[in-house]
């Protein structure tokens, strides 16, 4: 029971006041249950509220209504059990990659000593393929490398949930493919429950067990869920050859188009009302 309701986002609403004091619900009645070890992609149009949902799970912004429960504890504050990788790497520029990873470890594992912390940090940086750049400062690294450090910093916390907010959004497509595989490898090894926000349809299919399609905001919610039944570990070429892949793809694109069409309709009807 616990296992398949590991992370439960139930009926969550987030509203912001507009300049006239009215509450505008950006997300309304967002419902999602995640099994332990599952990877979920969240896809939707820009500005629909994907980051908002993710930040609520991270505890960075409070929910207006509803609740988020992780392993039978309600989420209120940010904490190291929910590691976030932001769209920008967000490294501290005055610390080396090693120190950036170490930073969170001290409060995540207060019982371990310094050498053990360093061991963990080194291992995580090795996992993302950065074992050669332990002493480099962020300004000396490319965007891709910086994002790798960001990923290492997140997985070093051994989080219950890994939250990725368009982690490859600012990278070129080659680096993006590389990093997708880096993350998939780690996920296959450690079986971390993951929410991945993305714009990229192929990425969503390749990475996820299930895809959560969000309707357009305001009052965005889960529009449809799509199960991706490719076996793990996954191989990109195999998946690209699989005919199911194109069906999934078609379905996603169809959904996004529908959303867009609905938006147009709404606009028109609003115009007619005026």
């Amino acid at each position, binding site marked *: 029971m616990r296992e398949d309701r590991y992370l439960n986002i139930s009926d969550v609403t987030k509203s912001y006041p507009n300049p006239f004091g009215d509450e505008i619900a950006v997300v309304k009645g967002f419902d999602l249950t995640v099994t332990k070890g599952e990877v979920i992609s969240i896809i939707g149009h820009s500005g629909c509220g994907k980051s908002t949902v993710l930040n609520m799970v991270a505890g960075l912004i409070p929910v207006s209504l509803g609740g988020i429960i992780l392993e039978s504890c309600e989420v209120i504050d940010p904490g190291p059990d929910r590691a*976030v990788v932001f769209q920008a790497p967000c490294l*501290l520029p005055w610390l080396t990659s090693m120190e950036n990873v170490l*930073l969170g470890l001290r409060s*995540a594992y207060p019982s371990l000593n310094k050498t053990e912390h360093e061991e963990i940090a080194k291992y995580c940086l090795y996992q993302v393929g950065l074992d050669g750049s332990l002493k480099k*400062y962020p*300004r000396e690294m490319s965007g891709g490398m910086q994002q790798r450090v960001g990923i290492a910093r997140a997985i070093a916390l051994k989080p219950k949930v890994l939250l990725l907010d368009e982690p490859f959004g600012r990278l070129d497509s080659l680096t993006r493919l590389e990093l997708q595989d880096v993350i998939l490898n780690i996920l296959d090894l450690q079986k971390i429950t993951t929410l991945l926000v993305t714009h990229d349809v192929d990425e969503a299919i390749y990475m996820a067990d299930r895809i959560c399609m969000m309707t357009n905001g305001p009052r965005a919610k889960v529009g449809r869920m799509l199960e991706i039944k490719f076996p793990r570990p996954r191989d990109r070429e195999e998946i690209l050859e699989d005919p199911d892949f194109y069906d999934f793809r078609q379905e996603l694109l169809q959904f996004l188009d529908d959303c867009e069409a609905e938006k147009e309709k709404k606009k028109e009807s609003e115009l007619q009302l005026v």
Partner: protein
Amino acid sequence: MKLKHRIYKLIDISGLQLFDPVARLFFREEPQVQIKRITQFIVIPILAFGLFLLVWQIMAPRHTTKSGEVPKPGRVLDAAKGIWTFHNREKEKSIAFIASSDEANKILDNAKNRLEEIESSLIPAQDETIANLEILEQEWRDKNISPKIKKAANIEYEINSKQNSLKTELEELAGSIKANDKNAKEELVLRLEKLELQKSKWKIELAELKGTISILESKKYPLLERAQRKKDRLEEEKQYLSVYIGILTKNRNSKVEELNKKLVDYSNSFYAAESTKVMSSAKRLVRQKTRIEKTSESQYSAAKTLPYQTLRSLLCVFTGFIIATIFAIPLGILCGLNKTFMCAFTPFIAIFKPVSPIVWLPIGLIVVGGFIPDPENNALLSIINKLPIFSSFDVNPAFLASAITVALCSLWPTLVNTALGVSSIDVDHLNVARVLNLRFRERLISVIIPSALPLIFAGLRISIGVGWMVLIAAELLASSEGIGKFVWDMFNNGSSDSFAQMFVVVFLVGGIGLLLDRIMIVFQRLVSFDETAPSV
């Protein structure tokens, strides 16, 4: 890294970007661009400064004051050299005072030789030169100055005699007018009025003439003036040498030796003394012993030279600056972190920031005076005076008051900038800190302070500039030893030489201010983590 790039980096880090094009030109990197940059950033400023010197050279003699002519650049340079020589001589004297007898004898010979040379050959030679020049001066004066003076005097005489003759003429006229001749009387009044008008014009003209004459009279033959200055310097050196020799022959060691000899006598007479005299000779013995002890610890009390005063001012400014920093950074961090605290503190910043040092100083003096009623035996002062650097500067309440004034005036830029730096920290970085669940201490050390550091250092840079500016005024008012005191002494001295020395101080203060600023810029660059360098 190649040598060349290492040099570029060194230039960049050390804050000497000015010389970057020179280095690049040296390595033949885009010579055209570099030459353009060199002209722009090095040649033009040098030319401008040269122009300034030229204008100064021309303008200075036109303005005479009660302290003599405004000194020309050359005079100022001379004055600077003079200050430096004086400083070195004082140093020599204090070394001579504590030298052992062997060393003293060794330098004594040199000094005596030099004195001999000055007395027997240099001064007479200079006298001769001066005598020759005086003849030349007379010629020069006869040719260039006297005719002008004569001309001016002639005009003066003419005006005076014209005035007199007109006056007598009118008086005669008045005497000859008959009682009922109305027309003649009216004419007289008219002429009298005209004369008055003319007189006031003449008055101005006469005053001008007098001015020209006195300027002409005070004009000196440049060569003679220079020769006289040279002789003055020789006389100064002679005087110094005789004092120096005096110190060498009767310095600390010789004094102690003499006293020791007496001590032997005293102790002999003590042991030989009869019972009635035992007490008095014992007292004498003890007194002699303490005298010896004191003498062997005594130091030559050197005059306070400008280099000494400068070091003291620097120490004072750093003391004030450090006091300010100790308060400003933590307060700034608190203000940046906590809105409530910021709101509570804003009125204080707003009210105290614009207060001038001239107001803080008397308050500082009174407060310090209250805490230290008796400077001679005060625990705090004696502790400060035992600290390594402070020990050689004789810290007194005026010093502390000046330092506190500096602190109070230079506190604000750092405080405000720190608060700004802390409160404008990147939201992303704060989010990272929140996600990683950093404790307050770690958040402060690893995230907040590093990201605020560039702004903190920008604040410190402004602070030290303000502090240095304020300090001179504070010292001048508190008559605390330091550059300010030096300027004040020079002002009261009022000779043309001290006028030149004040100009030296202007350049000294400016130069040190520039240096402090550059040092702070270097620090600021070292703590900036982005590629964007702070503007210069």
